[in-house]
């Protein structure tokens, strides 16, 4: 196990209030880290348990919390895919290192829409979020996220190219599908956000790709954004903060993310779209900026270059507020461990 003490020379002392400061756009009293997900190899190294142990319901979460604690986070993220809460049954999603957005489609017309086994979020088992209270070190809270977002789930259910056609050729059915998924996701967040162990929520929904949004902003405004507005309002109603994780080129809709949907923080940035330094300057005064150390940079640069860039971003954050250090997306297996540690070690200085 790689302990906090070995990594940073002192005992872990998570303090969710520090992350909250960042999310509120304030200056934290220490450098703060943010990450959506760590790969299993890292979880093994950081928790001392090489493999997930499923002997009890709690065991995998205990490992997750231990890893996040040792790495220096003030929170642990719990994605709904790890829980038995809300899950949309998908078709066959053949997967290698990537997968096709056209695969897995189960809904192609009204008949298949009606035959689809829609999950009931009320029937989910949310106990795990309560039960983890005993497992969380003092000062740490959970950040809950959904099992895919609204647009992501609809794309998986219909298939990207078929959905594109449906948005033009059968708008009534398109609306019903988005509403069927959106209302369930909303209910998921309405149930999860008030739970005492949950300090904030990530709403994860990729909207863009390299050049623009995957569907036009008008389509997103019609089918996607209204549900996000409701989800953020539900999270806020519980007194919690809402972090948007959405990849791709979103410049055309960032104003709406901030002013209309009222997200508190934005996660996912890419150098080829808007490098984090630029994003922080562009939007940092209006919404908190999380992570953003580019994935390709993180995968292929030297540890020195990674630490330096991370330090510079942290310095900006400690000067102007509203920034937590982390990757542009997550830490998949292909990020060399030494590069990940080079990034988080920047909080040491």
């Amino acid at each position, binding site marked *: 196990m790689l302990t906090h003490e070995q990594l940073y020379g002192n005992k872990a002392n998570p303090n969710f209030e520090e992350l909250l400061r960042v999310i509120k756009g304030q200056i934290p009293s220490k450098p703060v880290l943010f990450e959506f997900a760590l790969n299993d190899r890292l979880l093994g190294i950081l928790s001392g348990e090489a493999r997930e142990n499923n002997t009890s319901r709690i065991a995998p979460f205990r490992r997750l919390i231990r890893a996040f604690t040792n790495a220096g986070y003030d929170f642990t993220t719990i994605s709904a895919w790890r829980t038995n809460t809300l899950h949309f049954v998908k078709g066959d999603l053949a997967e290698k*290192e990537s997968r096709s957005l056209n695969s897995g489609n189960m809904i192609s017309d009204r008949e298949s829409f009606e035959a689809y086994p829609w999950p009931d979020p009320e029937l989910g088992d949310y106990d795990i979020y309560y039960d983890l209270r005993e497992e969380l070190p003092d000062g740490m809270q959970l950040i809950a996220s959904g099992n895919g977002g609204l647009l992501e789930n609809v794309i998986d259910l219909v298939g990207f190219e078929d959905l594109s056609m449906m948005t*033009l050729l059968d708008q009534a059915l398109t609306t019903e599908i988005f509403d069927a998924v959106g209302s369930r996701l909303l209910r998921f967040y309405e149930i999860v956000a008030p739970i005492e162990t949950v300090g904030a929520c990530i709403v994860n929904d990729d909207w863009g*790709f390299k050049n623009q949004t*995957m569907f036009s902003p008008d389509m997103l405004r019609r089918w996607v954004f209204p549900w996000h507005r409701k989800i953020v309002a539900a999270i806020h109603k519980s007194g919690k903060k809402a972090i948007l994780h959405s990849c791709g080129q979103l410049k055309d809709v960032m104003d709406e993310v901030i002013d209309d949907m009222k997200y508190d923080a934005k996660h996912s940035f890419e150098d080829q779209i808007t490098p984090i330094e630029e994003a922080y300057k562009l939007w940092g005064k209006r919404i908190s900026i999380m992570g953003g150390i580019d994935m390709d940079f993180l995968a292929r640069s030297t540890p020195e270059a990674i630490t330096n860039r991370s330090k510079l971003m942290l310095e900006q954050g400690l000067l102007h507020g509203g920034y937590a250090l982390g990757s542009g997306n997550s830490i998949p297996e292909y990020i060399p461990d030494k590069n990940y540690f080079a990034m988080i070690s920047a909080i040491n200085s």
Partner: protein
Amino acid sequence: MDLARLVELGKIDKNTPHPPALIGQDGVLELTQLAIKKEIKAQIILNEGLMPGMHAIGEKLSRGEVFITDMLIAARAMNVALGQLKPFFLSGEIQAKGTIVLGTVKGDLHDIGKNLVKMIMEGDGWEVKDLGTDVSEEQFVEAVNNSTDAIVGISALLTTTMLHMGSAVQRLRENNPNTKIYIGGAPVSQSFCEEIGADGYFSNPHGLARELRKAPKLLI
């Protein structure tokens, strides 16, 4: 309304409810059939009727004025017309500008970007040999051996899969140093293109179409 404009708007046929303003009016299918009936040369239908429509929508996509959905429906309209023109391709009356061998790199199953490249290049008069996703170096080499003048296009989604582009370029070069290789996809950049010695990187397919239009020997 002219054929090119109908392609651009994605008005597939009379029954297509898109765009709403043209409901009930003839679409690309009917107009192509009419043009064939009037014995307009197939190459002219393609070059002056259909391709300008795809060109217009591709240009607009590259400028961010339209979205993937618009491109997909235009490509469907184009495909319906190409179906009507198939006999003329088979008889050799219509000639493509050349062949593009296209594929998503080994390990990678992502296909939306690659499919868009295919649509735009076909719409620009190229014959595209789509090798699909998860394409090995050997498959690229074999495809080029089967059409030696072909240009190669490779797509990737993640840094890990992008790295397989390097070995694909190397194998293709060993096989035929003159093969032009173009790359694209989320993590790909100009500097990576230089690093692996590919001939060009484009952030959108239209950039490739434009580049190839500049190469005089490739034009019909």
